[in-house]
């Protein structure tokens, strides 16, 4: 398998409210994680955001970034996950 970039996909799903992007962005900034792309939609009042991020030097498995994001999610009634991009490349690209 090719050596890949250290990037990740963050998905946020839940009820829309003020400050979701600001809150997530703040956490990412604390870890010096750079946001490459954000897309969001609101369907039936359900907020869905997909964020492509450059992890720089952060390793998801050895840092507590996923715990921090989950914590933010549970405080705000959102499901927040971070997954390394290799997963999506493996599943969706031949």
């Amino acid at each position: 398998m090719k050596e890949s970039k250290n990037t990740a996909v963050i998905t946020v799903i839940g009820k829309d409210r003020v400050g979701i992007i600001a809150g997530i962005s703040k956490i990412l900034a604390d870890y010096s994680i750079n946001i490459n792309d954000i897309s969001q939609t609101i369907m039936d009042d359900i907020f869905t955001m997909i964020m492509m991020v450059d992890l720089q030097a952060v390793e998801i498995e050895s840092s507590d970034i996923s715990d921090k994001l989950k914590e933010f999610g549970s405080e705000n009634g959102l499901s927040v996950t971070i997954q390394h991009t290799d997963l999506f490349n493996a599943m969706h690209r031949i």
Partner: protein
Amino acid sequence: MITDYEVLETMHMFTEQHLDIRTITMGISLMDCAASTPEESCRRIYDKIMRCAGKLVETGEAISRKYNVPIIHKRISVTPVSIVAAASGATDYTMFAKTLDRAAHDCGVNFIGGFSALVQKGYTNSDRILINSIPEALAVTENVCSSINLASTRSGINMDAVRDMGHIIKKTAERTAEQGAIGCAKLVVFANAPEDNPFMAGAFLGPGEPECVINVGISGPGVVKHAMEKVRGEDLGVVAETIKKAAFKITRVGELVAREASERLGVPFGIIDLSLAPTPAVGDSVARLLEEFGLETCGTWGTTAALAMLNDAVKKGGTMASSFVGGLSGAFIPVSEDEGMIAAARSGSLLLEKLEAMTCVCSVGLDMIAIPGDTTAETVSGIIADEMALGTFNNKTTAVRIIPVPGKGVGDSVEFGGLLGTAPIMPVNNASCKEFIDRGGRIPAPIHSMRN
């Protein structure tokens, strides 16, 4: 660039459709742990397992965090103990089972497989000792799994061993009667047992395997069912194509996890086992997936055809996704571990005879089936003999993991808990096959030309 659709599809697979990696299984050769005393051999076995698998669980957990992919089990398979213990001079191998149990516990894995013997052509003295040790070994250990290969297409069927295993299964059931005969849930007999199978209870590391190896078992009946829901009413060609695509994606997750585990542990990657493994959770059932084909209930006419097509399409999609496919690789149909199978067995529409037919076109065989406690050892052997014949004569793997539950009869059920689930006691044709089983000897290997 990954599209939003792909991201959301992936999310749903893991959240609503129960996609997971069922097991990362580390195979460890114990060939160099043979010694002239059982104590020395057990010491070497324990040390070697701890040395190789000490970091297995934490590595699995790290990979799980990186991709947010559930990895349900981390497990170990070892060289068949009948080979490793042969030189030790022991007359009972329970001590070896206890050593495996302690090593499994200390590594943090939930099962260790390899309390095994390969007797398709005949017994060594050591094989005999191991088989006689099974009831006690499975009663006094928690995490040890035992498997015996009784037949192969090249060697035929060892009917002496088939007869003996009927008695051993009955004894194992009696020895663990207070826990619903759970010993039998950890004991499987095979025809054509694969040497690289990562799934329990049948995992062991065959003599042709490397020193240490990572094998991964995938899962995902829920994902395939969900994909099929989108093509309701379409013809079966479309269904086959849909299953292949879903299987491809599932297998790719397995391949990613296997490669990463292999790299982190410094152990070669062996194979991906392309098996649709159900759990008792609603939405993770192979039976419900078969019903999605258009069957009122699993076990009715059409079930075998649907299963054959499902199994084949999963393999076709999976082999495109990974170059190294092995193990059992086929849909599992364990009754107690599958919510839909349990319902079908309870309603009487799924019978042992139909399950037997289904095992002709998928892997594993008669799996996790509870039968009345008063079923004779000879009838258990007869059930095994038929299943061994299916595997031997059709050149495929088949197996039997059957549980004669003491004190229970048809209409009762037995609760094993966790992934082993709940088994309704299924009726058995009790007309005697004793004289046939008592003959013993070997059924010769089948001819390979004139195949009809």
